[in-house]
């Protein structure tokens, strides 16, 4: 299972990528493999406040709807519009084209509470 080394991870299988003030959120390769065929993504609204550990988005496979929890708190600055046409990007490119939303962190210290790639690898193996 692919676990990129430049990201941080939530126990609930989301990842974040930090680029300056912008934090990108998606779900892991392990999560997409567990969910299988993703057919619908309901992202948060741009401008919405999201809270660490609270539901920020919903991802639906044929069989079930799954909540996606925001790894850290902040304000949503952008959502991946591409997913409304092509939700399967979460399956095919979970760490790239399958990103779900971007935010600016309101409590950057929360980042340190997230799992390192090593710790997340240990959790899923």
């Amino acid at each position, binding site marked *: 299972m692919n676990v990129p080394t430049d990201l941080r991870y939530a126990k609930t299988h989301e990842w974040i990528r930090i680029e300056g003030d912008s934090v990108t959120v998606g779900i892991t390769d392990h999560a997409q493999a567990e969910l299988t065929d993703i057919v619908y993504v*309901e992202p948060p609204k741009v401008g919405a406040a999201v809270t660490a550990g609270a539901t920020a988005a919903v991802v639906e496979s044929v069989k079930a709807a799954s909540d996606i929890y925001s790894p850290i708190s902040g304000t949503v600055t952008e959502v991946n519009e591409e997913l409304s046409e092509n939700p399967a990007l979460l399956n095919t490119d979970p760490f790239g084209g399958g990103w779900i939303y971007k935010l600016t962190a309101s409590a950057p210290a929360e980042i340190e509470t997230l799992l390192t790639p090593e710790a997340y690898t240990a959790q899923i193996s």
Partner: protein
Amino acid sequence: MSDIASLKHSPLEAARIAAGARMVEFGGWFMPVQYSGIMEEHRAVRTAAGMFDISHMGEVTVTGAGALAWLENLLTNRVSKLAVGRGQYTLMLDEKGGVIDDLIIYRTGESVYFLVINAACRDLDLEWMRAHLPNDESVTLTDLGNDYAAIALQGPDSEKILRSLYPECEIPKRNGMASLSETGGAIPELVARTGYTGEDGFELFVPVAKGETLWNNLLAAGVKPAGLGARDTLRLEMGYPLNGSDLSRSRTPLEAGLGKFVALDDPEKPYFIGSEALRAQRAEGLLSLLIPLKLTVKGPPLRAHYPVLSGGSIVGETCSGALSPSIGEGIAMAYLPVALTEVGTTLEIEVRGRLYPASVTTVPFYKKPSQNS
């Protein structure tokens, strides 16, 4: 998931797990929801062939001089119409007309009937049947549910595959049942040309000890294992009801749109359990009907228990729903007031607080390409 040890297990469980099954609890059974993925399995059944372990379903034989009369009393469809080797879809109701189970009954001999009942209500069905047996021993009921392994082979390539595995078998016509192979054993090997997918296909019934070999032979013939997830999307695309979701003790077959399987006006069948309630309901007029709905915009997959609204008020809820893998649209079934059931009626379905426009449509939701012309 509830405690696995308390669940019932199919004789094919080891073979299924070897095929990569992801297991879930279903109706008290430990069952595979999917193998390679619901979309892929669904597509395999629509375009080639897939197989479902249906060993969790129950098999019951009814024999004896009184079998026919007793079954006519118990079931809604006209059993006496069945020639030997033929089967029919039928329902078993309570006195109020509520659905206990929907099932298929085959006549396999002069006075021999073979019933295939749903997994989740096997015990309840048998209890109901036994409670209604005559005391004169003119009817013998035998539960073979734990003696059979059963596999549904479904898809356009099914006949070709069945012929390759059983060259001697006399392949039955649609809704027929025949001997799969003559073994002379106590548990006859049977094949029925039925299914729950809308595709051509067969349901194969073999003694438990032979189940795994059959599964592996089908696998070697290129048949794709498919789980409950694909079984649900396939049946829903055809508008076939699922007992426990679309059918229940609180709904009658008339409300469920299954009137053609209910012999209410047949002079040869003046009575069956539930018939009086159904006649009364028909005389008073139906209040609600199970109808198919389709989202008219791109939206989330529909699922059971989503509110259905008309003019801002909740008028019902979905009892089954899916994003149809074949047509790519949100589809659902719901019981709605009769005034709102005309084809084309505009409604809304609420998903996580948002309203999506929908309209009343017709089943099947999915029509085979050849049927479109």
